[in-house]
């Protein structure tokens, strides 16, 4: 493979950006709501453990849930107020099932905890930076919400040469990263340099899609003479897939079933860099984020800086409500986001956008038979054969789908997007991945049951054996005793007789 072909992104689609409606107005602060619903799990990993009691007064930035386990993140109070309840509230998850949530009634004062600000943030030890990022509850704000400290720590230990900051924002509608780069470039660059120090990366590169010229200019100005390199990448979906970004920026390919750190690259989102800067330089934990509110049914699309825990309905209301009947409410971008079940679910750390789409934007059509046009093959950034995989899954031949590379599918939705027959390909793949997971779990369970049964029978055998042995020992002891008694009696009789 030549150098040039390595730098060229594979597959991909060019969905209509539809970003203009929200990209050109400045980030607005979302007004405080009467109640904030702060879920204890807003990240990948173990949920945080509540450390506040009902009725307790909390300050903005105060720890309300402590991270537990290796992969977890703490949760902080978004504003000052009282904890009115700790209980279940619908979570922003496709299931719409309730999850453990701390409910806070703001007092409106917005008083912060006393911040622990280092005199010179850039003099902090690398592991101290990572620890502070972890304590501030910073997670990947691109949507995956993976605890940032875990990535920083692992990369520092394994050693990376390049820190890539993902400013791709390839999902249509979303402009929250675009806006934060335009308005807070200096802070982002500081955050990048802090992370660079935390992992000891020689290079720091920011990849920004070339459809964001203002963001590129702002970042270039802020990064001048800092050693952080800003690079324009072609606008295409899924440019924000970190492996695609690495490919385009560095020409390096991450081996399958591996992480980017395995080839010496660490990737973080631009908004995460901002959160890192806030955590280190201002001592402020992650308690708010920028959310794009957009879609054809939203009256005034905008980017709002939203305290975590704000119900989604309030975001729509703050943007003038709906001016058309929304056919679908979506959390995240249209390509990979999921449908909202309730508008009462709160904004969490991974919420990049809330959309209200009209029928014409979704382009609803009935699925038709596959005509093997192989548009999906051309669109797949991974190099899979979506049409063949879907055909296998339809006949429940999951093993064949896996052999075709099902487990390498990233679920980006490019194939479904271009399919002229409107076949819900990603839906098939996610169903199959779920089935495989259930099968693997079932197998584990079966093995565990088998092991338990084997252990039980071994235990029963042992108990029976021990019982037998004990009985035998008792019998032998008894016989010995009897023999001794007999002998004693006999001896007594003999003595008596001789006496």
């Amino acid at each position, binding site marked *: 493979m030549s150098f040039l072909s390595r730098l060229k992104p594979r597959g991909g689609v060019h969905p209509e950006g539809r970003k203009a409606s929200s990209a050109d107005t400045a980030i607005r602060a979302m007004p405080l709501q009467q109640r904030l619903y702060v879920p204890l799990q807003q990240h990948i990993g173990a949920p945080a453990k509540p450390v506040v009691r009902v009725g307790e007064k909390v300050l903005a930035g105060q720890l309300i849930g402590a991270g537990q386990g290796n992969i977890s993140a703490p949760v902080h109070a978004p504003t000052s107020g009282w904890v009115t309840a700790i209980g279940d509230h619908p979570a922003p998850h496709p299931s719409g099932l309730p999850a453990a949530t701390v409910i806070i009634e703001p007092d409106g004062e917005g008083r912060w905890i006393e911040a622990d600000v280092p005199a010179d943030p850039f003099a902090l030890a690398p592991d101290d930076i990572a620890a502070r990022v972890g304590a501030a509850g910073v997670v990947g704000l691109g949507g995956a919400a993976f605890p940032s400290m875990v990535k920083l720590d692992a990369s520092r230990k394994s050693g990376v040469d390049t820190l890539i900051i993902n400013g791709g924002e390839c999902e249509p509608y979303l402009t929250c990263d675009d806006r934060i780069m335009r308005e807070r470039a200096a802070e982002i660059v500081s955050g990048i340099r802090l992370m660079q120090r935390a992992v000891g990366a020689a290079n720091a590169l920011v990849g920004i899609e070339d459809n964001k010229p203002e963001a590129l200019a702002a970042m270039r100005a802020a990064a001048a003479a800092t050693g952080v390199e800003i690079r324009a990448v072609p606008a295409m979906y899924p440019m924000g897939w970190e492996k695609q970004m690495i490919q385009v920026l560095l020409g390096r390919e991450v081996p399958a079933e591996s992480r980017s750190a395995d080839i*010496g690259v660490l990737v973080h989102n631009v908004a995460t860099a901002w959160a890192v800067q806030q955590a280190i330089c201002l001592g402020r934990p992650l308690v708010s984020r920028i959310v794009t509110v957009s879609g054809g049914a939203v009256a005034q699309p905008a980017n709002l800086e939203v305290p975590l825990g704000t119900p989604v309905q309030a975001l729509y209301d703050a943007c003038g409500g709906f001016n058309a009947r929304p056919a679908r409410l979506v959390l995240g971008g249209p390509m990979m986001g999921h449908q909202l079940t309730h508008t009462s679910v709160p904004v969490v750390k991974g919420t990049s956008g809330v959309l209200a789409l009209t029928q014409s934007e979704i382009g609803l059509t009935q699925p038709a038979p596959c005509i093997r046009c192989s548009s999906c093959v051309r669109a797949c950034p991974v190099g899979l054969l979506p049409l063949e995989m879907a055909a296998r899954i339809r006949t429940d031949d999951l093993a064949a789908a896996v052999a075709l590379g099902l487990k390498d599918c990233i679920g980006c939705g490019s194939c479904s997007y271009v399919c002229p027959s*409107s076949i819900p390909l990603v839906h098939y793949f996610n169903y199959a991945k779920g089935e495989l997971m259930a099968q693997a779990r079932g197998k584990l369970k079966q093995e565990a049951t088998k092991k338990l049964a084997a252990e039980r029978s071994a235990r029963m055998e042992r108990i029976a054996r021990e019982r037998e042995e004990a009985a035998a020992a008792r019998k032998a002891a008894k016989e010995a005793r009897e023999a001794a008694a007999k002998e004693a009696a006999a001896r007594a009789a003999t003595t008596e007789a001789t006496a």
Partner: protein
Amino acid sequence: MTPLAHSPHAHAPTSVSRIMATVMLALVPATLFGFWLYGWPAVYLWTVSLLAAVAGEAAVLRLQQRAVKPALLDGSGVLTAWLLALSLPPWAPWWIAVVGSLFAVIVGKQVFGGIGQNVFNPAMAARVMLLISFPLEMTTWVPPMSQLPGMLDSLAVTFGGTQLDAVSSASLLGHVKTEFTRGLDLQQALSGHYSPLQALWGERSGSLGETAALLILLGGVFLIARRIITWHAPVAMLAGVALPALLMNLIDPGHYAGPLYHLLSGGVMLGAFFIATDPVTSPNTAAGQLAFGLGCGLLTYVIRTWGAYPEGVAFAVMLMNAATPMIDRYVKPRIYGRTRKGDILAAQPAKKDAA
């Protein structure tokens, strides 16, 4: 509550019927030109083909108790009939079109399970069936613009079985093949029958849509520009015809015609841009399509040059259709992060300086 919709919550402005409509649009110039060259009989034949396909498909769908409307609206049946009509002699009797169209949509497509399921290109399957079953009707050609009959007189040509002896002539490929059997060499056979410029403009005997090579090419380029097809199969097929033609022409110009003659005659252009690019019956990957197109081209040349039939596109395409599942099995894209064999790539260790 309605079931949750799965991502993506957006869709490209495309559909099967839109694709089929675009392909038909690309065929319009060549078809209109054909009508102008061959007159009303060609119009009638084309119309009968399309009507027969629609009626036949509707009837068969009804027998299968499947929804008729969506299957007809996807436009694939009409397109098949259109392509078949373009490959027929323009003054062929009406029943040739009816039998061919019914065979294409019923045996060629619906028997396999409808759109997307057929192994062979339905239009080519029908053409091959007609050629084998009705060789006389399928090889009776008219030279273009020779005393075109009027609208009513043309009815007699298409529906009345009027004999064509007065005007009939052989197609170029057929003519050359016949002359070879008479012991003439290529130069003698071609004299007065062929000039590349004429072939480009289509002023010669041939089937309805095969002759206007330039307009077919135009339609093909339009489809590539609209991203309905990719360049791989057409270019490979043209190369598959042109390269052996060039080679053999260099070896013995007295017997083997050059590449231009082969590219511009018969159904090579139509085959390359509209038949070899049929999504259903061609491979999935770019590399597979290259192999497929090359095979179509080579087989066409072999059949034309050394086979019994003067024209080989339909046979070549069907043979390659049969090879498509095998090509798809062996030619797969490389998965990201894996080798071609599917093994995990070796990790490139961290570099001190980034690329």
